[in-house]
C-alpha cells in the first residue's frame, strides 16, 4: 500500500512537469528540452534554500522563479537571436548543468532532518489524526504520514492547475494559446508573438522547476542527474492524457495531463514490479513515446486507405 501511495505521490508531483511540457509542446508546439535542466534547477534551488533554513513554501516559490528565468533564456535565444527551438533548449539545458552544480556546491544535497513541505504535511496530518500513525483503508494498512503527503501534493497540484486554467482564459492567456495556433493571425491582431513565446516558456519552466522542488522535498535529496530524460517523461504523460480525455478543450486537456502523469507513473511502477530492470526505464519510456507519436499517423493512414477501398 505504501508503494501505491508513493506511486500516486510521485505521479502527482510529476504532473506539474507534465503541465509545463503541455504549455511548451502543445500550446506553442515548441519542443523545449530546457525542462531537463530546469527540473534539476528547481530541485537544487529549493534544496539549497531549505538547507539554509528558508521556509519550504518560500523555497518552492523561489524554485518556480528560477525556472521562469531559465525559460526566459531559452525563449530569448529563440526569438531574439533566431536560434532553432531545439538548439536553444539544448544550450540552456547544458548551461544549467554547471549552474546547478554551482547552486548546490556539489552534485548531491541530502535533505535529511531538514524542514520540508513533506515533513510539514506529515506533521499536520499527525496533528489531525491526534497521533494515530496508521489507519485501515479497505483492508490495507495506510500510514498517516504517506497519506498526508499525498493529500498535500494533490492539493498543491489542484491549486496550481486551477491557476493555470484560469490564466489560460485571461486576455493574455488566450493570446498565448492563439500564438501557438496561428502566428500570422495573432500578429495581425496586434500581439507581439516573440514576447508571448518568451513568457510562455518562462511559465512552462516555472512549472517544471516547481515539480523538481517538490520532488526533491519528497524524496529527500536533490541530485544533479535527476533531470535526465524528464522531457520525454512529461511528453509521455501529455500524450497519455490526450488519449484519456480525447478533446481539445483547455480545461480537460489540463486534467488529462495530470491524469496521464499519474497513470504513466503507475504503469512504470507495475512494470518495475514485474521485473523490468530500472536501467531499461528510459529506453522503455522513449520507445513508448515513439509509438504514441506514430500511432495516430498510422491510424489516419489506414483510415484513408480503407476509405479509398
Amino acid at each position, binding site marked *: 500500500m505504501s508503494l501505491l501511495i508513493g506511486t500516486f505521490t510521485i505521479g502527482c508531483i510529476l504532473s506539474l512537469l507534465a503541465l509545463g511540457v503541455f504549455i511548451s509542446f502543445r500550446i506553442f508546439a515548441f519542443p523545449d528540452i530546457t525542462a531537463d535542466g530546469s527540473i534539476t534547477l528547481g530541485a537544487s534551488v529549493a534544496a539549497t534554500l531549505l538547507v539554509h533554513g528558508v521556509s519550504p513554501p518560500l523555497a518552492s516559490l523561489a524554485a518556480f522563479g528560477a525556472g521562469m528565468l531559465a525559460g526566459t533564456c531559452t525563449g530569448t535565444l529563440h526569438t531574439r537571436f533566431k536560434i532553432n527551438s531545439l538548439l536553444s533548449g539544448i544550450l540552456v539545458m547544458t548551461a544549467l548543468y554547471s549552474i546547478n552544480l554551482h547552486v548546490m556546491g556539489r552534485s548531491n544535497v541530502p535533505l535529511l532532518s531538514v524542514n520540508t513541505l513533506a515533513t510539514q504535511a506529515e506533521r499536520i496530518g499527525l496533528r489531525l489524526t491526534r497521533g494515530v500513525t496508521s489507519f485501515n483503508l479497505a483492508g490495507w494498512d495506510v500510514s498517516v504520514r504517506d497519506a498526508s503527503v499525498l493529500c498535500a501534493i494533490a492539493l498543491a497540484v489542484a491549486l496550481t492547475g486551477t491557476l493555470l486554467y484560469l490564466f489560460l482564459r485571461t486576455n493574455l492567456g488566450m493570446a498565448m494559446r492563439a500564438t501557438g*495556433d496561428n502566428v500570422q493571425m495573432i500578429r495581425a491582431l*496586434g500581439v507581439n508573438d516573440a514576447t508571448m513565446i518568451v513568457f510562455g516558456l518562462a511559465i512552462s519552466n516555472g512549472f517544471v522547476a516547481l515539480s523538481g522542488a517538490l520532488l526533491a522535498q519528497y524524496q529527500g535529496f536533490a541530485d544533479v542527474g535527476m533531470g535526465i530524460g524528464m522531457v520525454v517523461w512529461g511528453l509521455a504523460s501529455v500524450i497519455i492524457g490526450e488519449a484519456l480525455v480525447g478533446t481539445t478543450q483547455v480545461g480537460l486537456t489540463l486534467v488529462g495531463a495530470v491524469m496521464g502523469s499519474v497513470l504513466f507513473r503507475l504503469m512504470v511502477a507495475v512494470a518495475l514490479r514485474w521485473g523490468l530492470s530500472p536501467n531499461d526505464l528510459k529506453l522503455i519510456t522513449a520507445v513508448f513515446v515513439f509509438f504514441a507519436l506514430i500511432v495516430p499517423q498510422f491510424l489516419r493512414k489506414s483510415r484513408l486507405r480503407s476509405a479509398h477501398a
Partner: protein
Amino acid sequence: MLEVHSIAKTFNSGTPNEVRSLRGVSLTLEPGSWVIIIGTNGSGKSTFLNAVAGTFFVDQGSIHLAGRDVTRWPEYARAELIGRVFQNPFSGTSPSLTIRENLSLAARRGCRRGLGWGLKSSLLSKMREEVSRLNMGLEDRLENAIGSLSGGQRQALTLLMATWLRPELLLLDEHTAALDPKSADLLIALTEQVVSHDKLTTLMVTHSMHQAASLGDRLIMMHRGQIIHDFQGAEKRRLRPDDLLARFEEVRRAEQLDESAALMLAEKYI
C-alpha cells in the same frame, strides 16, 4: 489617410535570386476610399500590401498611416491601425480556439492584453448579432472550435474580426481567391456591406477582373513592382472587365517587344 512615398523592396539582394519586388511605389489614399489593386503574377501587388501591413521593412521610402509615420513599426504594432484578411482562409483565425474566443481576441486588436477575463459576457449579445448577420447559422455555434468550419465561413469570420474595431485601413489580399464561387460571391457581398457601412478606407488585391471592375472607387494596375495605371472617378466607373483584359494584353505585348528588342540588340552588338 494612407501615404506611401516611393517605397522600394528587393528580396535576396546580392544573390542570383535577387528580386526587385517594389521599385518606387507611391500612393495616397483619401479617407473612405476603396482602392482595388490588380496586376500580373509577380507584379508586386501582394508585396505592396505586405509592405503596408509591416510583414517586412521597406528598403527605401516611407509609409504614413492616419498621420503617423509607421515605416519602422513592426507588424504587430501596425495592427492597431490595420485590419487584415488573408488569401488563405486558414491564416486569419485560430483553429483550436472557439468562434467566441477568436472574436474576443479580435475585440482587443491593438489593445494591451493583461489578466482580465478573456471572455466577456457583455460582448456575447453583440457577437450573436454580428455573427447572425453572416447568415451562416454560426450564431448558435459560438462555442465550437473554428477549425471545424469551412473556408468560406472562416473567411467571413476573419472579415468580421478584422473590422470588429473600426480599422483606419482595411487590407484584403485576394481574400476570395481560395473559395468556391458561391462562397466567394457571399463574401464579396459581405465585404461591400461592411466597407460601405463603416466607410472604411480599403486596399483590396484581386485576381478577378469582374470584381476589379465592379467594386471600389479607384483601380490601380501594377506591373514589375510599379504602378502603371491609376483609374479614378468617372474613368473607374466606366471600366469593364474587357477593358482591363485589354490593358493586360497591352502589357504583355510591350513585354514581348522589350524581349525581342533586347535579343536583336544582343545579336547585333555582342
